């Protein structure tokens, strides 16, 4: 899941680079060529790609945590198998993306440690709680749906190793989305209680889904290095519009209502009112909607979301408690596991 659209890639000015090499580099990108790790690239590009791939890898790993909680409580054997496979896929995606990042010059251990100590970020949406089974359905429909829209465009990027990884990830991602659709459709075809639970989960996840694509575009987004160097190929706002154009009519047809909500510090909805901006603009052909609360977005990204501390603490626990296992497999030096 989880593309890296909202990672802030602050690329330094490239004026210190050799102009000839820079022109050659830009020409390769403009010609649609894929870059390989041993190609010359501006230092800022290498740094930006590393940040993007590392953020993406972190998001895969942390994204598995809320879903993992539900494996034991899945409502049927098939759903349990599917969720287990999905969580396994996400962790695998994390492994693949850490590998891409390692080749750009940072060790895996350093990345895992920076994630745990909060030096690097992961996707904001995993700082929200998943209190009901319907949240799992919504994560797989909305968040994976958003991730696919994003990752399809990232697979058109310029950096070969990342692009190849993205293609493989997308092929696995198709299962996550289809099973998410299946869950949402099943719940919305079910009892009044199931429908109510689904609506409540939708209310919790609609905002984070809109935020998924990152903050609103800067006015010159198309000319900034991430786009010019094809690290990204579509802007945040363009992706968000594609997402709402697909999901608003689908949600409405399912019988879901789209609300503007306020939440408490635990991520639970405290009040809601219908989003009265929801309408298809016949002139543009696009759906209109109320923008998410960007103050909340920045608050959560700075570490003050409902689940930030919980997610990182769990990651820290598994890193520290897994240390004796890693030692044992590397050099057989570990003795007994530490007492829990």
């Amino acid at each position, binding site marked *: 899941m989880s593309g890296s659209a909202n990672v802030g890639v602050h690329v330094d000015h490239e004026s210190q680079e050799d102009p000839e090499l820079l022109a050659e580099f830009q020409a390769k990108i403009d010609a649609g060529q*894929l870059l*390989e790790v*041993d190609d010359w690239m501006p230092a800022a590009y290498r740094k930006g790609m590393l940040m993007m791939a590392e953020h993406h890898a972190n998001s895969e790993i942390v994204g598995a945590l809320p879903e993992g*909680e539900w494996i*034991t*409580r899945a409502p049927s054997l*098939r759903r349990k*198998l599917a969720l287990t*496979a*999905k969580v*396994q896929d996400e962790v*695998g995606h994390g*492994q*693949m993306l850490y*590998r891409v990042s*390692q*080749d750009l010059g940072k*060790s*895996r251990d*350093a990345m895992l*440690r920076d994630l745990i*100590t*909060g030096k690097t970020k992961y996707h904001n949406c995993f700082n929200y709680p998943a209190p009901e089974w319907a949240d799992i359905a919504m994560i797989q429909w909305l968040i994976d749906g958003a991730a*696919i*829209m994003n990752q399809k465009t990232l697979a058109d990027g310029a950096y*070969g190793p990342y*692009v*190849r*990884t993205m293609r*493989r990830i*997308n*092929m*696995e*991602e*198709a*299962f996550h*989305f*289809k*099973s998410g*659709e299946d869950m949402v*459709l099943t719940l*919305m*075809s079910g009892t009044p209680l199931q429908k109510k639970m689904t609506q409540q989960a939708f209310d919790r996840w609609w905002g984070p889904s809109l935020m998924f694509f990152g903050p609103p575009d800067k006015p010159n987004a198309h000319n900034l290095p991430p786009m010019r160097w094809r690290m990204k190929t579509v802007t945040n706002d363009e992706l968000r519009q*594609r997402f709402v154009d*697909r999901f608003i*009519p*689908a949600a409405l*047809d399912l019988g879901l209502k789209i609300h503007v909500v306020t939440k408490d510090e635990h991520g639970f909805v405290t009040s809601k009112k219908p989003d009265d901006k929801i309408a298809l603009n016949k002139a543009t052909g696009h759906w209109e909607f109320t923008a998410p609360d960007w103050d909340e977005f920045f608050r959560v990204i700075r570490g003050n979301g409902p689940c930030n*501390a*919980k997610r*990182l*603490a*769990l990651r*820290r*626990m598994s*890193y*520290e408690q897994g*240390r004796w296992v890693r030692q044992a*497999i*590397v050099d057989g030096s570990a003795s007994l596991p530490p007492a829990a």
Partner: protein
Amino acid sequence: MSKLREQVELVTGDLESPPEEDLRGYVIFTQLKMGQPHVYAGYLDAADDDMALIFAREHYGQDQECVGIWAVPVDALSGTDATHPASQDVGGVEMYQVFIQARRGAGHVSAETVQARSPAEAIEDAQRIHTDPSKYYSLWVAPQHLIASTGPGDVIWRYSDQSYRLARGYSKDVREKWTKFRDEGSLKEYEKDDLKEAF
């Protein structure tokens, strides 16, 4: 459900344990049908060959039918690209596996084996076979004895029902369920954004 997650102490700050060495990097190649070449699947990190094969079976061997896996340590690969510089050091004659990357950005695919006394010599031999440089972008070679491989007849792809973990296991059901909520036109529009390539 386990209460473990509710009891996790919310610790922050620096880690107590010291930094660790990374595991060894491997390039994984999968063979989808008997007699076909091994095709680049991706990378993974593992402590040793056995662990690499176990991870590879799970991560690269379960998306589609797969009959064989090779795990090649990254540091055993030499190539015509700068990422994997070829050693000139001459040793005894050994067998090298050649991998061909057809075009820039594509994955490498296994080709023939050559006998050589060094990786550099193996690359030269491979280039003598693949004389037309327009037919490929880069070459890799790896000493055959360093390639970890699943055995013949080893079952990798599980023949039990895997539909729960593949997109195609849901497609028909999902479409049928949608038709109860949506007309054909809006459903078609919605499906335009589906991933066309899927396992």
